[in-house]
């Protein structure tokens, strides 16, 4: 009979060794980028996992009402839903499978329970592996555009004078996320496509530490973003600017780290959102 320990040790010894340099360990810029990437807690993931999409049933459906999505700000970030879902929530209409959207103050009981459930599900490796197995990752915008025809508007940061050291794109179903990083500055763009959510949708985006300073920014083309701020970490003076907008069936979110407000506006202004309008394709 073979010895488990010997066989296992032989097998694991075959895993690559890594050399880690003390300079890279102490590189604060690298740490900042990584912390920003890790600290973005999004309930959109729950939507991707099918854990939180709110379903409504109706006798008659006005297709045009599903195009309009409302994005609101709450204490922790953004919450959104289409007009029909909001209408049902406000009327308090009882129906089979009805659930409400989050009130302005925070999560509904159902969403809080779903969040707790998702945290437990995070320990369920089969679920995580299933989720990871469907995520495609691209190391550049160019690689993404070559292989994936999905609509995903991104700014030309180089053209605007902002250096870009690295680009990453992740695609999971109707959810696409991008990270564009320069020296001490980086942006995350998220795009949700709800064109398949025939019976309505609702979702939330949460930022650790909460948000403040809600304001609007309207581009010259007439697209109105909601902007809020959050602190990059507690006791830090560094402000992160978050932007959200809904166009047609799409919801777009952007998180700007290291950018001034004027730079954020310049970048948002440069993006042509008309491609997201229904019928534009």
């Amino acid at each position, binding site marked *: 009979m073979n010895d488990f320990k010997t066989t296992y040790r032989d097998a694991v010894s075959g895993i690559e060794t890594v050399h880690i340099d003390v300079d890279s360990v102490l590189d604060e810029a690298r740490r900042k980028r990584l912390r920003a990437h890790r600290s973005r807690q999004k309930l959109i993931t729950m939507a991707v996992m099918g854990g939180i999409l709110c379903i409504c049933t109706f006798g008659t459906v006005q297709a045009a009402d599903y195009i309009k999505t409302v994005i609101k700000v709450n204490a922790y970030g953004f919450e959104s839903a289409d007009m029909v879902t909001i209408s049902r929530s406000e009327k308090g209409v009882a129906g089979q499978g009805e659930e409400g959207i989050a009130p302005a103050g925070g999560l509904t009981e159902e969403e809080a329970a779903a969040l707790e459930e998702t945290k437990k599900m995070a320990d369920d490796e089969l679920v995580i592996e299933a989720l990871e197995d469907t995520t495609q*990752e691209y190391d550049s915008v160019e690689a993404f555009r070559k292989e994936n025809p999905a609509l995903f508007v991104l700014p030309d940061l180089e053209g605007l004078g902002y250096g870009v050291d690295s680009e990453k794109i992740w695609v999971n179903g109707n959810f696409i996320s991008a990270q564009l990083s320069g020296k001490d500055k980086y942006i995350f763009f998220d795009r949700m496509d709800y064109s398949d959510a025939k019976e309505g949708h609702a979702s939330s985006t949460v930022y650790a530490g909460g948000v403040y300073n809600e304001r609007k920014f309207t581009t010259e083309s007439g697209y109105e973003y909601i902007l809020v701020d959050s602190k990059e970490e507690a006791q830090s003076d560094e402000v992160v600017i978050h932007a959200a907008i809904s166009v047609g069936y799409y919801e777009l979110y952007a998180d700007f780290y290291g950018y001034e407000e004027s730079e954020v506006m310049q970048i948002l202004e440069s993006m042509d959102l008309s491609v997201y309008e229904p019928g534009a394709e």
Partner: protein
Amino acid sequence: MTKEYMQERIDLYSDMLYKIAYLQLKNSEDAKDIVQEVFYQYIKSEKEFESGEHEKAWLIKVTLNQCKKLWRSAWFRHTEGLPKQDLPSENRLEAEVIEKERRRDLAKEVWRLPRKYREVIHLFYFEEMSVKEICEATGRRTSTVTSQLTRGRELLKKRLKEEYRYE
């Protein structure tokens, strides 16, 4: 702490921590990030350890906590498969080929174990830590570690085609 000393500690422990993180996260980039973060905390904390064993337990604990934090974050990177291992050329003896495949099958089944069982199995069999040391590194009670080891072995016995001696 001089840079040379820091690099010496990194060289001493990075491989161990990387393997632990890799088995948790199944992704080499994430594992490397975790290990770098652990050493960052190690260096910045300027913690004094009673012994080498205490230092090792602290590093493992922080690594496992960092892995747990990543599990709970909203966006996961793509999982890689088991790391590729060199297969012998056709000229090698058939026995060697069979041996390599056997090791790979075993590693695959450990890879499939639930995270908490995988953790203790690795620390017990690869790092050769005692149950007491595993308790210190993971913050779990003795009874918990013992039952996770037992449960992990039971699952492996069920799933592995071959029989192994575990003690």
